[in-house]
Every structure is written in structure tokens, then in C-alpha cells.
């Protein structure tokens, strides 16, 4: 058994008991009495700001009122009507910058209604009873291919299935769920929730999932377009951006996305090797997820190094504080230069940065921090564009996800517009489905 002090990169730094505790649910479910008190705090605002702030437009005051009268299943239906992945969104949404930030109680007293936890209560209750409160419409005879079984693809598929369209989802991975399954910190989706939610979602019927099928390898967009009435692309961002820095030892460099995935898929957390001194380069949610989980695995010192100031971090202040409260050190305005190896120890050289004439540049002044392991979390990139027109580095879409190609829609992280959030992907998938439905049925008339 190693310990947090063991030099280098090592597995088994913490006991299984400690790991189980560390990776338990970040936000424990509300107890029944807490639910009543939390729900009572909602003012049932007119044209509520929280609804406006929700990318999926969930009628939050209504579902909270339904909870307050002990009708949590009805509340869940209200949520799922707009957001079929309401269970996962209740766990991973950055509510602090969405609904809860807009809550009038946040404005007035700095303590918003706990919308996320109430949403989780309602959706958990429904799923625990294995209720699927939707029935498919009569078959339309139409069929649609969805590429990518992440939040956007699942949302689109469910809505299409609901409307009587048959859906085939192709996904490159062996499991459906996309980032819900592979890309979210383990303590936000405990107890195999992502997989359970997918299974629950599929119980609508009419959706077939073909795993291990990659666009461009196993099928082409042309082929899908000829085999189906429409195609929805929700392939996400399959590639990771690489750091531009020199390193004397590449073995201690890895990408945060892969690390997070490994954590999510393992059944033995202790087996995952982690550095004594870990540095995560980046400023987004992926950086925070990687840093916090490094600490939870038993790393002694964990640092997030971000090249801009705190205010530019895409991880919310809540996420930053979550990292800090776990003992992660946040360094701002520094960029990696090189990784030096001196015998058994390694040090990361960081250069301070400053913005001059609107451009970020190094100041020449440097610092060194111990770094047995460096994770890169500087963004992801589109792995396949299917030959579609791009907007920047994403598939260009207009309206409800219409791409440059007829009868091909796109949504989620791979498509332009919207934040790269689960909830945004769900909204885009849902809206594209409605547009696809209208287009296909309109065409039939």
C-alpha cells in the first residue's frame, strides 16, 4: 500500500473505504422533510426567471409546487416533458450559473431555492418506481439515424420516438451515454446512474442503439442519408487539444478527458495510478473534475494552472470553490513552459502571463512546481465533420440544428451555438427532433 506521500505516480494511495467515501454522491439526495422545506421556499414567480435561465425551459415553479403537494411523480413529468435527461441534469447542471443564479431568492438573500436538488428528488422518485410517463404516438413510417448517443442524441431520439418515428442511434463507444457515461466526475453520477438513465429513456421503445459504430469508419453520412429519412449528428468533440510545451518525460503527461473516463469506467478506484504532485493545465469543468478527483484518489498536492485570470475561467465559481475546498490550489495567469526531470522528481516550469494589447503573452518570469503528473484539460475538438460546413471549429447550424446539408441536423457539443453543457445538448436534441418531425411530416403531406 502506497500513501499520498509516495513519490512518483502510484496506485493504492488510499484505502478502499476512503475512496468509497471520497467518491460518494457530491450532493446527497434531500430527505423528505428537507424536500418540503426546500420546496416551500419557491415563490412561484410569475414568468419565472429560473425558467428563462434554463436551457431546456423546464417549468420550475410548477414542478416545485407539485413536489410541495407530495406529487413528485407529476413533478418529474413536468421536468421530463422538457428535458428527458432531467435526472442527469439535476446532478451535473451548473445550476449556480443557470436556474439558481436567476432565482429571485439568490438575488434577494444569496440563497436560491435548491432547484437542482429538488429536480433530482422528483426524477429519482419517478425512476425508482420505474415509471416511464410517455407513450409513443402512432407509427409514422419514418426513420431517422442519430449519430452519437450522448445527451443531444438521446434527447433527439426520445423525442422522435415519442412522435412515432423509428430511430437508430449509432455510437462509437461500447456504451451509450456519451459524456454522461464517460466524461463527468464520478461523484456527480454515482451508482451507475448514467447507464440506468439511458435504459430508462430507451423504454419509450422505437429506438435501436448500434454500439461501436463510428461515423467515417463504419458508415458514412451519404450512406445514412440514403438509408434514413433524416440524420441527426451529435458526435460531440472526440478529439482533445494538445499542449504546446516541451517535456523531458512524456510518461507523466496525460489528457484529463481520458483520466476522467478511466475513473468513470473502473470498478477498482484504488487501481488507478495517480501522481503525488499533480498539475492540471486548463480552466474549465474538465480541469476541475480532473483536479478534484486526483485529490480524491490520494494525490498529495494538486494544482490547477490556468493561463488567464479567475474571471476568465469557464469553470463556475462554485466549481472553483469545490476544488479549493478539496485542497486543490488554483494558480492563475500562468502557462506551462517545460517539464524538467531531476532524478526521481519532476518539476513543471510555469511562466507568468499578462494581457498586452488584447493578447495573452508570457512575461518571462517563471516559477517551478513539483509535478509527477500533468493533465492537459485545454479543450476538445471536433473529430469528424461529415463533410459539413463549419462555423469556426464546429458544425455550422441554423435554426433548430439545421446543417448545410438537406435532411441533416446537428446538435450538442459538435454543433455551433450554445454552451457545451449537458442541458444545452438536451435542448438542442429535443428542438432538432421537433424540427425533423415537422419537416418529415410536412413533406409527407
Amino acid at each position, binding site marked *: 500500500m502506497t500513501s499520498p506521500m509516495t513519490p512518483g505516480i502510484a496506485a493504492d494511495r488510499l484505502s478502499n473505504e476512503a475512496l468509497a467515501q471520497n467518491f460518494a454522491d457530491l450532493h446527497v439526495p434531500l430527505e423528505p*422533510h428537507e424536500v*418540503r*422545506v426546500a*420546496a*416551500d421556499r419557491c*415563490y*412561484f*414567480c*410569475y*414568468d*419565472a*426567471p429560473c425558467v428563462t435561465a434554463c436551457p431546456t425551459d423546464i417549468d420550475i415553479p410548477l414542478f416545485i409546487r407539485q413536489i*410541495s403537494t407530495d406529487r413528485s411523480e407529476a413533478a418529474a413529468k413536468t421536468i421530463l416533458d422538457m428535458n428527458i435527461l432531467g435526472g442527469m441534469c439535476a446532478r451535473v447542471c451548473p445550476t449556480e450559473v443557470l436556474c439558481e443564479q436567476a432565482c*429571485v*431568492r439568490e*438575488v*434577494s438573500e444569496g440563497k436560491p431555492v435548491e432547484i437542482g436538488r429538488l429536480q433530482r428528488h422528483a426524477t429519482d422518485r419517478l425512476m425508482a418506481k420505474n415509471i416511464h410517463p410517455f407513450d409513443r404516438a402512432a407509427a409514422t413510417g419514418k426513420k431517422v439515424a442519430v449519430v452519437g448517443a450522448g445527451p443531444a442524441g438521446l434527447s433527439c431520439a426520445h423525442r422522435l420516438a415519442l412522435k412515432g418515428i423509428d430511430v437508430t442511434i449509432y455510437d462509437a463507444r461500447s456504451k451509450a451515454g456519451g459524456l454522461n457515461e464517460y466524461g463527468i466526475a464520478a461523484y456527480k453520477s454515482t451508482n451507475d446512474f448514467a447507464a440506468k438513465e439511458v435504459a430508462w429513456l430507451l423504454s419509450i421503445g422505437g429506438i435501436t442503439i448500434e454500439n461501436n459504430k463510428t461515423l467515417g469508419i463504419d458508415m458514412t453520412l451519404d450512406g445514412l442519408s440514403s438509408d434514413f429519412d433524416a440524420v441527426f449528428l451529435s458526435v460531440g468533440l472526440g478529439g482533445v487539444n494538445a499542449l504546446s510545451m516541451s517535456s523531458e518525460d512524456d510518461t507523466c503527461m496525460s489528457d484529463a478527458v481520458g483520466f476522467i473516463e478511466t475513473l468513470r469506467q473502473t470498478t477498482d478506484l484504488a487501481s488507478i495510478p495517480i501522481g503525488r504532485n499533480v498539475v492540471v493545465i486548463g480552466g474549465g469543468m474538465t480541469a476541475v473534475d480532473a483536479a478534484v478527483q486526483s485529490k480524491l484518489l490520494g494525490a498529495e498536492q494538486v494544482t490547477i494552472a490556468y493561463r488567464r485570470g479567475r474571471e476568465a475561467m469557464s469553470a463556475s465559481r462554485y466549481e472553483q470553490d469545490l476544488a479549493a475546498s478539496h485542497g486543490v490550489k488554483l494558480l492563475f495567469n500562468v502557462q506551462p513552459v517545460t517539464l524538467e526531470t531531476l532524478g526521481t522528481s519532476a518539476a513543471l516550469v510555469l511562466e507568468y502571463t499578462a494581457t498586452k494589447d488584447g493578447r495573452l503573452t508570457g512575461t518571462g518570469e517563471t516559477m517551478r512546481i513539483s509535478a509527477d503528473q500533468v493533465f492537459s484539460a485545454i479543450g476538445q475538438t471536433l473529430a469528424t465533420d461529415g463533410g459539413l460546413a463549419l462555423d469556426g471549429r464546429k458544425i455550422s447550424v441554423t435554426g433548430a440544428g439545421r446543417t448545410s446539408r438537406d435532411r441533416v441536423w446537428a446538435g450538442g457539443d459538435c454543433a455551433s451555438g450554445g454552451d457545451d453543457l449537458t442541458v444545452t445538448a438536451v435542448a438542442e436534441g429535443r428542438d432538432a427532433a421537433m424540427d425533423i418531425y415537422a419537416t418529415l411530416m410536412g413533406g409527407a403531406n
Partner: protein
Amino acid sequence: MADLTTDFLGIKSPNPFWLASAPPTDKEYNVRRAFEAGWGGVVWKTLGAEGPPVVNVNGPRYGVIHGPDRRVLGLNNIELITDRPLDVNLEEITRVKKDYPNHAVIVSIMVPCEEQAWKDILPKVEATGADGIELNFGCPHGMSERGMGAAVGQVPEYIEMVTGWCKKYYSKPVIVKLTPNITDVRLPAAAAKRGGADAVSLINTINSIVSVDLDSMSPEPSINGKGTHGGYCGPAVKPIAMSMVSEIARAPATAGFPISGIGGVTTWRDAAEYIALGCGNVQVCTAAMTYGFKVVQEMITGLSQWMDEKGHKSIQDFMGAAIPNTTDWQYLDLNYVAKAVINQDDCISCGRCFAACEDTSHQAIVMSEDRKFSVLDAECVACNLCVEVCPVENCITMVQQPAGTVDPRTGQTISDGYANWTTHPNNPDSVAAE
């Protein structure tokens, strides 16, 4: 320091907070501890006639309306009068009164509507040394089915008759406790006065079914699948009780008649309001049953601080002070014009004022694109609904419009004179205001 001592019908107590006749005052053990905790007096749980005592149900006696955080808003009970032998209660009352000469000990009594029954019990009660008696003409469940309690309180002639017997066979003050389960509470109050009572106390509990179990389809509290109405009390009944108190305080036949106020007194403020409406003291039950005897300490210190702030040296200083301001609708000043004003700095943009006004009132609040809410004076009737539904206290206020200005709603210039419905031109019975 304000003096909280009260003299009610010549009965002295260190403060105006008495425990009402109810489970908390059913035995010596409780009453001694209540006095030690600070209660000024007790009305001993109602005694029945000599003989085998009543029996209570052996299932739940209480039902409650809760707030979302389990705050007790209203309490319902189906308990009867004391189910302990008469002589045991009398012995305990005697001992307690002897040990607490400066605290008020009142004995509640309920015996059949026959002169002999009262003639039998009253000398025994007198012998205890207790300071007075309270006639339980209000209990609305169980006992009323046997011709006692509310069954008496609902017939003014019975009240007058029984009160007369009590005055005949008992030398100390007689308080008549009134039931609210009646159309006009002034009639039983006047009957009590005619019968010679020294005071009335009100209200007893209100007929109530607090909930229905939707699985068993039984009212609650449920006794083996069946329920009955109980008596409702607690914070929820305070407005009803205060209105009844005010009616008695204002009625010519009973004006100035001593009143002991009962119904939802939970804090010092509740007590101050009852006293302002003319009560000489208050009786408390639900607050003690919810929080224990210690709750009186807040009442004592709170009332004392408020009286000091207001410069009231004694309870007498503000007793009845709100009665002159309690009037009939027809005498309200129709020349008083107010408009709602929303303080934009305090507004949290919840929109509740807008929803309430737009959907259910006078469409006098407008909402801008950026969720700013403002009042249309041309539509605002000053109904106060926006004030009451606003989650932020004092964010919306009703501001009196100055005389001489034009009310944009009516187009009329606001007069500084007083005018009410009795002289209003729309009133077919109006008296010409020549």
C-alpha cells in the same frame, strides 16, 4: 420596567398569561411546573360532576394543520373534560393554591344543566380556595352530545340560567367561557352578563375536521377507521377569536364587560393585540402544547420590552386602546385614498404582485420587458393584495394620496373631509349630508 401584573376581577396574577383549561392544566404536577416556568395563572382542566369520571378515546386525540416545516398552525382535539376523579382534582387544586397564593387558579366546571348539579359541586370548589370559576359552555365535541359544553353555550337562556345558579351558590368571580360555534357571539355574552357573570372568556374551540385520510377515507384523528369533528385552536383561529372579542367589547350591552382572550396566543404580540381589543388577560394552550411551558418566557419579556418602548407602565395603559378604532364598515372613511407604491430597490422581481393583480384584482400593475413592476394609479384601488403577496416585507406600501390631488382612477379631487357610506350618494338609504 413595565408592570405586567394584572388584576382581573380582583384576581391578581404576576402577568396576564394564563394557561387555558386544557390538558396542560389537568393535574397538580403540570400546574406547579407551569407556575415555576412563569405562567401567571391557570384555568384548571374542566371538572365534571362527582361519580365515575368521563372516559377518553384510547386512540389519537389530536390532529394538526402543519406548515411545510411542521410548524403547528392549527390544532384539533377530541379530548373530553378531565377523566380523573373529582376529589383528586379538588385536593390538588387546594394544595396548589395554598402554595401559590400570588398566582391565579381558576377552576373550570361542566356539569349537567340542572340546578342541583351545580349546587352540589360549587361548595366543593369554593372549599379549595381557588380564585374563581370558569363555566365551560364551549366544548364542541363529545360533551355537547350529552347536553353540556357548547350545547349550553349555544342557548343564551341556558347560559343566563346556569350563570345565575353559580352566582347563587358560589361567592367568587364567575367567568363564562363562550363557544364560537354560534352565529352572533354578542348574544351569549349578554346572556352571561344578565345572569350575573363577572366576565366572559373566549373563544373555546371551533368545530373542525382537520384532514381526511384519502386511503382509509376517514377523518383524522381516526379512531379505528372513524373520525368525528373536534375543536380547532392554535394560531389559525386567532383572527376569528379577536373579531368575536371585539364584537363583545363594542356591543352596547357588553361594552366594558371584562374579557379573558383565548385563541391562538403564541407570542407577546398576540397577547398585546387581544389586550388592545379589550381583554384583561389572555389564556394560552396550543403554544404551550407545542413548545412546552418555557414559551411563556418569550411572552413575558417580549410584552415587557414592547410596553417599555411604548411607555406603557401597566397593562391598563393600553387595554382596550384599539376598541375606539374598531368600527363598522359603513363608518370607514371613503375619502381616504391610497395607492400602492413599489420600492424598486427592494423589489426582487418575483412578479407575484403582478400575477395577483393581473389575474385576480384590478390589472393595476404592469411588468416591463426587464421585469420591472410598476403601479398604474389609474387602476389601483389600493386593495392591498400586492402588499400581502409580496415576499419582501415593506417592499410595496400603500401610500395615502394628499387631499387636493386628483385620483386618476376616479377623476375626483381627493377631499380632506371625512365621508362614509351612510352619506354616500350611491347609498339608497343615505342621509343627505346637508
